[in-house]
Structures are given as structure tokens and as C-alpha cells.
């Protein structure tokens, strides 16, 4: 994509067209001039894909029924709610979220954002949430959680991971206020969030926070200064049993409860995050993903091999697409969400 960029001083607010003056928010309309974000589903429109019934002015886009549900009032087919396959590409960060091959809905959600002052280095933030599928409307939890966490990570007062998780937990808890109907089992989700701070003085720093079993990986070449590894520790039954020494890995993983998560955002959950910060000694790629990917490819080295060669060819969006594709090819039994953030001088190695 090529654009003619005019000098910052002459730039106009994209929303109200008034000239801007180097501040983050437009003095005229309040538009956030530095922030770009992505990852949300786009609402569908047009005639029903099932029966061709014409669109109406309902909030759902086409002939959905009076009860406000996502079903066509003529043929009953559930409309595409826009989450079957979502891609977000902001250049410095990209993500793909896919329904997978088995589930009827995509209960994962992602939110990615770049905060870039005209003269400074961009701050990148990304969040992946995975709705707990045994509760009601888990997709509400994952979308609310991802959006709230990203909002806080790119807040004008600076990124604060523990506050971001706290606000995500509040947003998920607020879903039971009645405006989404009555839940027997209120929605809940996991969360993994990261903020990549270019840190002009002491080098780039990556802060990762998580609740549940969605993961963050550091991916790097085999001989890299900062070796590839899993950055998070699952809040899952098996992991806790193994780490506390209660059970050996084989017994713990064979248990029916192995994959049950022990922390989550939402009703009855322990939303307390674990947070780690790393200052990588060399270039690499930060990967956030839901278990729809890591259930098939849990190893950092394996993931690095695929991701780094793809990154060199097509940038972070190619990485997110490629890893999603291999999860689908492996069976796609769960929703798959993958977010990639290249870190370090990756663009000096010949990629766009």
C-alpha cells in the first residue's frame, strides 16, 4: 500500500478534517490521532445467505426476526456474525481469529493496537481471549475482555498490565447487568495480553499478562541471543498439579480434568493475572495464541521454525495466517486465534 504522506504540520484530522497540532487527540473533535486498532468483527449486511430474504433495518443487517436473534426470520439460518474468520493487519502487529472446523461459533476474540506519535516509535499492544465454552454466550466475555484490556494498555497514562487485566475482568463481570438477557451460567474467558514498548533508552521491553491457558511465546532462531520459549504458564489443572509436585506429568495429563482452567475472567473465576517482563537480547517474534493452535503445536522451536520463515516472506500477517492454517489442517477442533508481533530489527532482514 502506498500513500502520499504530507508533513505532520499540515495533516488534518481524518474525522473532522480540521488541522492537527501534534497532540494525540484532535483539539476539535477529540479523535485519537495516534491510535490504530483492529481485531473486531465487522457486522454483515445484505440479503440472507440462506434464502435470499431481503435486508431490513434491524440491528442485525438482514431479515432477522423480531426477537433480535441472529436467525433469519424466513429460513432460520444463523447469519454469519462476522467472526467466522477475522484478520487484522496493522503492519507492526497482525492477527487472525478463525471459527475452526468443528465449532458453530467463534468464541475467541482478539484486539490489537498500535500507538504511534508522528515522531516516536510505536507502542504495540495485543490481547487474545478464549471464551469458556461451557457457559452461556462465551463470545461476549472474550470480546468484552479483549477490548477492555487493549483500551487500558494504550491508555494516555501509559500501559499498565495489571490494571488492564483488572479492567478486562470488570468488563466481563459487567455482562451480567441484564442488558444481555439472563444467564444461567454467566460468560467467562481466558486472557493473554502483551505490550511491546520500544523503550528508546533501555531497549525494547515486552510485558505479558495472562489468566487461564491462552499462551504467549517468544520465537527466535535456534542460535538466537534470546532463545525461543513459552513465556506463560497455563493456569490449568494439569499444570498446577505438575508444578506443585502433586502428580507426575503423565498422570496429570491423563486426568479428565487436565485441561480444566483454574483461573478465568467472569463469574466465579480467579481473575488474578501472572505478569512477566522480558528485554530480549536479540530479534524475534512475540506470538499470542489460544489453545486452538497450541493443542496441536505446543513447542516453541517448532512454532519458531514455521513463523520465522513465514515472517521473512510476508510479515506478521503471513505468520498469523500460516499458523492458523496449520491448526486447521491439523483438525481445527477448536477456535484458533493467533497474533504475531515482530520484535527487533526484523525489517532490516529484507522483509517489507
Amino acid at each position, binding site marked *: 500500500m502506498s500513500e502520499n504522506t504530507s508533513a505532520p504540520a499540515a495533516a488534518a484530522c481524518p474525522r473532522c478534517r480540521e488541522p492537527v497540532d501534534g497532540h494525540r487527540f484532535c483539539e476539535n473533535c477529540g479523535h485519537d490521532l495516534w491510535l490504530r486498532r483492529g481485531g473486531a468483527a465487522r457486522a454483515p449486511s445484505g440479503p440472507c445467505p*440462506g434464502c435470499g430474504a431481503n435486508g431490513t433495518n434491524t440491528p442485525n443487517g438482514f431479515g432477522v426476526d423480531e*426477537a433480535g436473534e441472529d436467525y433469519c426470520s424466513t429460513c432460520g439460518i444463523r447469519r454469519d456474525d462476522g467472526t467466522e474468520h477475522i484478520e487484522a493487519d496493522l503492519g507492526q502487529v497482525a492477527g487472525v481469529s478463525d471459527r475452526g472446523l468443528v465449532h458453530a461459533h467463534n468464541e475467541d476474540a482478539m484486539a490489537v493496537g498500535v500507538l504511534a506519535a508522528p515522531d516516536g516509535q510505536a507502542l504495540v499492544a495485543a490481547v487474545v481471549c478464549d471464551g469458556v465454552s461451557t457457559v452461556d454466550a462465551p463470545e461476549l466475555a472474550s470480546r468484552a475482555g479483549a477490548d477492555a484490556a487493549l483500551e487500558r494498555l494504550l491508555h494516555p497514562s501509559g500501559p499498565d498490565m495489571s490494571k488492564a487485566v483488572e479492567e478486562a475482568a470488570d468488563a466481563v463481570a459487567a455482562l451480567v447487568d441484564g442488558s444481555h438477557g439472563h444467564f444461567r451460567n454467566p460468560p467467562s474467558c481466558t486472557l493473554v495480553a502483551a505490550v511491546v514498548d520500544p523503550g528508546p533508552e533501555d531497549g525494547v521491553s515486552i510485558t505479558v499478562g495472562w489468566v487461564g491457558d491462552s499462551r504467549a511465546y517468544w520465537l527466535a532462531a535456534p542460535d538466537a541471543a534470546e532463545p525461543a520459549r513459552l513465556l506463560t504458564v497455563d493456569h490449568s489443572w494439569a499444570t498446577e498439579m505438575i508444578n506443585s509436585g502433586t502428580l507426575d506429568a503423565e498422570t496429570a495429563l491423563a486426568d479428565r480434568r487436565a485441561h480444566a482452567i483454574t483461573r478465568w475472567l467472569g463469574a466465579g473465576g480467579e481473575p488474578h493475572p501472572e505478569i512477566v517482563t522480558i528485554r530480549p537480547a536479540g530479534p524475534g517474534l512475540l506470538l499470542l495464541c489460544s489453545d486452538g493452535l497450541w493443542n496441536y503445536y505446543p513447542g516453541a522451536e517448532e512454532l519458531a521454525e514455521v513463523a520465522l520463515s513465514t515472517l521473512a516472506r510476508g510479515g506478521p500477517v503471513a505468520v498469523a495466517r500460516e499458523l492458523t492454517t496449520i491448526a486447521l489442517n491439523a483438525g481445527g477442533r477448536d477456535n484458533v486465534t493467533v497474533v504475531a508481533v515482530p520484535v527487533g530489527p526484523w525489517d532490516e532482514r529484507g522483509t517489507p
Partner: protein
Amino acid sequence: MTDVAGAGAFTVEVDQNSYLPAGASRVDAVVTVTAADAAAAPAPASEVLEVIVVDCSTSMTGSKIRAARQATMAAIAELRDGVSFAVVAGNHVAQQLFPPVGTVVANAGTRTTATRMVERLQADGGTGIGAWLTHVGGLARQHPGSIKHAIVLTDGQNGESAEYFANALNGVLGTFTCDCRGVGTDWRVDELRTIATSMLGTVDIVADPADLAADFRSIMGEAMGKSVADLALRLWTPRGATVRFVKQVAPTVEDLTDRRTEAARQSGDYPLGSWGAESRDYHLAIEVPAGGVGDEMLAGRVSIVRPGPDGAEEVLGQGLVKAIWTEDTALSTRISRGVAHYTGQAELAEAIQEGLAARKAGDEATATARLGRAVALAEASGNEGTARLLGRVVEVVDAPSGTVRLRKAVADVDEMTLDTRSTRTVRVRGDG
């Protein structure tokens, strides 16, 4: 105001496996409809009509008419102050016993007068149940919007022509709900069952006249607790779908399929009668056009609808029946507990009725097979009440396999009790 609180006054829970294998088109669901607390409070007395119809035909002479008087007096004593009521003496015609015409509002005075009139009740004449129903229908039409309920007691077979009776029944459909009681063993189960089913009420046998008063008291207690009249189950289905059946399956099996009246677009209404602090289960089977793998379809939307003033309607609760096509057999082969259970309970009722009919017709082989099947189904589902009644008609050799022998001598009362109560179901084990 009697308004139950609109949407949310009823909960509609759906038990189904919504996952279907590729190409499949039949969707089964069990829908549990329950009145929420706010909706379950009894309606104001001024909006309730009760009519008691007592058989006074010649065959009632003796202990039966004495028991009928006692029972009617017990029922009158249960009437809440403010309720409209009437007592009708039935023989070949319907004679208004109290008040002389129309209905009267219950209070200490009217209850006493009614009781005195009942004490003088004499048995004389034939049995014309169609005429009784027509009379009650006339009273009910004077109370639009009220909860209208009748108790009909008889000891014998209807003396009217089948055509006259059918026309009479047809003429009162939907005007009131009716609980029927047969006293003794000279009445016909199918006759009273037809009335109870059509009029959305219950049917039972009171073999010993001495038990009649207690039974009437309990029917009246239940009737006094009703809170909403004339509810309907509205079923929306997608274009091209066919409703295979809509059955009430708890507390009893009642097939409502043919009771459908067309409502809004792609929707039909099935009458539910009046409702109190209670919960009922319905089994729906819908054939939908098969979707592609990954498609999700709304196969049915169940709404509990109450007609409002001036043709307005109120939706009191809603539940969704879905179909999702998948290639994952782990999902599509799951069986809904509710659907499996009530499929068995409906078959149990059928097996009993067919078995008893075969026994009457002298076809012992069919009777043994069908009643044996019933024993096995009752055993498997934990329907102890029905199992006990079956045990009086057949000798159970092995319940799980349904191995039985017909008993040689079976009392009429045992056979009629089994027949009458064959449609009673139990809920899924482990549910409250």
C-alpha cells in the same frame, strides 16, 4: 390488574441435542415451561369461574348419589370468596341446581344456600354428557377473560348419539377447562379421556364413592390456584419445515399436534389452557430442510403467548430449538436425556392402551407383548406408579426384559385404573 409481568413471567427451557449429522433433518426437543414466582400467584377471585356438574341419572341411586352430594359440598367449601360459580345437576339434560340461572359470586351465604340445594339432589333420568358440556359452555361465554373451569362427575356411559356428543364437544372447545371423574366401574375410559383431552383437563377413576369428597376437594384446590387463563404455545418454524408433533409429556401425555391453529407468519398456536404454580414438559419434533455442515439453523422458536384485551397478545416467555450440522460424530450422536426419556413415556402409554384393547378383544398374544413392553418401559424409567398398576393386570416374571403373563382374573377397577392413568409420566430421574 392481573397482569403477570410480561416477558420473563414464564421460563422456557429447551433440552435437546442440537447437533445433527450431515443430511439429517429431524429435530427433537423437550421444552419445559414453568411459571415464574410472580406469574404463579392465584388470579383475583373475580376472574375465576367454577362449574360443578354432578351426574344425577338413575344409576347414581344409593351410595353413589350420597357420595356425590358429599363431594360436591366439599368442593363448594373450597370456593374462594369472590369466585363466580354454579352447580349443575346432569341427567339426560342439564338442570341448573344453584343459582337458578347463570352464576353467583361465592360468599358464606351463597355457599350455604348451594350446600342446602345439593343436600336435596336426587337421582333420576338418563346420561347426556354433551348436553352438560353445552350448558357449561353457555355459562363460560358470559365470563370472557376469566379462568373457567368445570368438574364433571359421572358413573355411567353417555346415552347420546356419537354424533350429537361430538358436535356438543366441538361446540365448547376452548371455552373452559374440564376435569372428569368416573365413579365406580360402569363408565367408559375412552369417553371421559376424550373430554378431558379436548378440554385440557385431567381424567381419573374414583372407584370407591367414599373417596370422592377428598378428590373433589383437591381438584378444587388446584383450580383455585390457577393464575393465567387461555395460554397458548406458539411455535415458529423455518420456511419448508414440517411439525411432526407437539405433545405434552408431563405431567401426562397429551398429543396437541392436531390442535394447532395458524397464528403469525410461519407460526401455529397450540392451546395450553390455564396455568398455576406449575411446570409442564412438551416434546416437539420438527422436520427442517437439512443445512450444510457448519450451518446453524433456528429450527423452532417456542413462545408462551397469552391473548390480551382487544386482540393484543403478550409473550410471556420464549425458548429456542436449534439445529447445527456437524461432521463430528461425538457431538451428533449424543442423546438428549429428556427426549429419550419422554419418547419412552409416550410409548409406555401407547403400549398400555394397546395391550388393554387387545386383552379386551381376546388377542392374548398381542396383549402379553404390549403389556410386557409397558412393564419394561415403566421399570427402566422409574415410573413406579404405573409399574404398580401394571402388576395388578399382569404377573411380572422379569421386569427389565418385559417378560409377563396375563392374569386370569382382573378386577374391572384395576383395568380401568391402569387405562385411565396410563398417560401419567414421571420426569427424568435426578431432576427435581
